[in-house]
């Protein structure tokens, strides 16, 4: 499914050009979310690559790095007072604004069941400020604050599982999506709109892997391919959890070895065979957990 097919007949809410890096899929993530939701949307973007990448044709609130969920909560409550019940409240945040500094206010908003659609464009580090590690950076990945030296070789610990955290906090809808599977992503945005904007059930949390050519150190033409590899190796399964009901949206015919995904990225070039094996066994366990939950 090409993006062009999805977009036909859709009024654009995002306005080019953007200031994103060459080959950055963040623009696709924000554009797909916004164009699916349409003009009747209030957008909040905390400090992130998204904050600088392009002009948006619907109202946008200013917010601080830790505060996207709280600012969006304020917007949602004001809309409620104004009787504007069909207006979407969308947050497009990076992993820093979701996993780390934005975690507290997100947690509060999820608990309060604020009608917010939260799209986390997760590029697994602070890319906007120059590739520093975040709570979403996977183990052994190189970043500028987890460099590969003679003693330390990349990040020493695994990343958090934000979808699990948000689900456990009480979000009625949690999903993982990918820029390589746009139809699936669009469907998830539509479902989030139904649950958060129409039914006012709480925060819908959609996490999209933002495969970052600049920070992950690979050819800028390969962003979609890397995103597809993440799904097909079981690292980034496409799933959704609607009020506890789990659904696996896509099962690859053949689950590819994790090494296929790792070897194209310069940030993993120093990995030893043992480390790749550890990646494989962790991913296999994770994927089997997905299959089990789906059955």
């Amino acid at each position, binding site marked *: 499914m090409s993006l062009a097919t999805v977009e036909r007949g859709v009024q654009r809410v995002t306005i080019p050009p953007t200031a994103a890096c060459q080959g950055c899929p963040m623009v696709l993530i924000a554009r797909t979310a916004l164009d699916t939701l349409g003009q009747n949307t209030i957008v909040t973007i905390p400090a992130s690559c998204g904050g600088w990448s392009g002009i948006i044709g619907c109202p946008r609130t200013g917010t*601080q790095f830790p*505060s996207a969920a709280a600012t969006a909560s*304020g917007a949602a409550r*004001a809309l409620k*007072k104004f009787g504007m019940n069909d207006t979407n409240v969308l947050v497009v945040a990076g992993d820093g604004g979701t996993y780390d500094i934005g975690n507290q206010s997100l947690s509060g908003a999820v608990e309060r069941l604020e009608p917010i659609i939260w799209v986390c464009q997760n590029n697994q580090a602070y890319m906007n400020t120059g590739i520093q590690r975040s709570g979403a950076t996977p183990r052994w990945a190189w970043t500028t604050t987890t460099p590969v030296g003679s003693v330390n070789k990349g990040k020493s610990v695994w990343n958090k599982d934000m979808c699990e955290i948000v689900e456990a906090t009480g979000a009625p809808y949690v999903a993982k999506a990918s820029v390589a599977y746009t139809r699936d992503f669009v469907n998830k945005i539509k479902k989030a709109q139904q649950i958060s904007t129409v039914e006012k059930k709480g925060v819908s949390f959609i996490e999209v892997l933002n495969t970052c050519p600049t920070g992950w150190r690979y050819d800028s033409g390969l962003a979609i391919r890397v995103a597809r590899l993440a799904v097909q190796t079981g690292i980034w399964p496409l799933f959704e959890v609607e009020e506890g009901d789990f659904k696996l949206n896509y099962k690859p015919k053949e689950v590819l070895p994790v090494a296929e995904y790792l070897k194209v990225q310069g940030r993993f070039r120093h990995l030893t065979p043992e480390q790749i094996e550890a990646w494989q066994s962790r991913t296999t366990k994770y994927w089997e957990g997905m299959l089990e939950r789906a059955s």
Partner: protein
Amino acid sequence: MAKGKVDFITGNDAAAYAVKVCKPQVIPAYPITPQSPVTEKIAEYVADGELDAEYVEVEGEHSCLAVARGAGQLGARVFTATCGPGLMYAHENMQQVAVDRTPLVMAVPDRSHVSLYPDLTDITPESQSGIIMLFCETPQEVMDTLIQGFKVAEDHRVLLPLFVCYDGYVTSHTGSTVLMPDQEDVDAFLPEYEPYWGRVDPSNPVISVARSVPQMKMEHEQAMENAKSVIKEVNEDFGKAFGRKYGNGRIELIDFDGAETALIAHSSLTGTARQVIKDLKAKGEKIGLIKLKAFRPFPAEDLREALKDIKAVGVCERHEIPGHGQGMICGDLKAALYDMPKRPLVVDAALGLGGTDVTVPELTYVANAVLEAAKTGVVKKKLIWAPEIGKSREGDD
């Protein structure tokens, strides 16, 4: 003239009642001592259906100010309250609310950063943020200043956050007789909020970016400048509607006829200073009292006018900047006086820091130092510390 029943309530309850009759649409709230009774009382009003507002139970003050900002940007009337460490935690967003020109009204029962008790350390960071700050002496003044506050903050010449500051515990938790304004009189005084940019309209989008540019700074400065006259106007209007007002809205001259020296006091210190001035006047001393009603924007023009023939002035403030040898009110006063051809001598008194009690003997000691400076033409000690006063009193015994 507006009427209303009389009740016996605390400063915090007065703040909550003022909020009820001003009808903000969105109220984010997070408890902190000694502010908590404000948020609790408002929660009761909402629970009982007496106040139709979105009450947002946030998970911290930083988020509290972000909720206020989000709702305010879309065009809602917003209120919140915090103090002490809570206000300091909210600092990042507090500044942004000011830069965004969001007319948010806040109750701030001042609390020190070193104790639960009152001093001005909590508003110190915000004193440079371009936020309007009005001091209150009594629960009645808290109520009246809050009602005035919405009208000042939401004025299209201003559009700024506004703090209604009163001493934690001393005013927040002390009961006093208060005239409770009727809803219809407040409605007549305070019209519904009309956002400058209009309510949010997705088909006609406005983008707000959390960055300050020189033009925004310039407009912010102009808004603070405009606030000076708007505060005075609203105070006069309030006087006409409710039969009471607070000086000219920025300062109040108390027992000032024939004064050759003066004390300046803020918040609850004013009440004690009133007694000290009365006692000294009875002894024939030519001293008067200036109540600092507006701290931001600083009433430099009004103070210059009031002090133009005064020989010496003492500043009684619950503040001191370590290493600076004075508190922030004294520093601001000296800057205001600098351009005058003839200016009074200035004595600063750092009192009640961390909320220690300030009583008549302390302020009398300060007043005597001012009288001596006026007599001798020399300020013997520029900064008087409360512990020194205690020591000297022990010596007197």
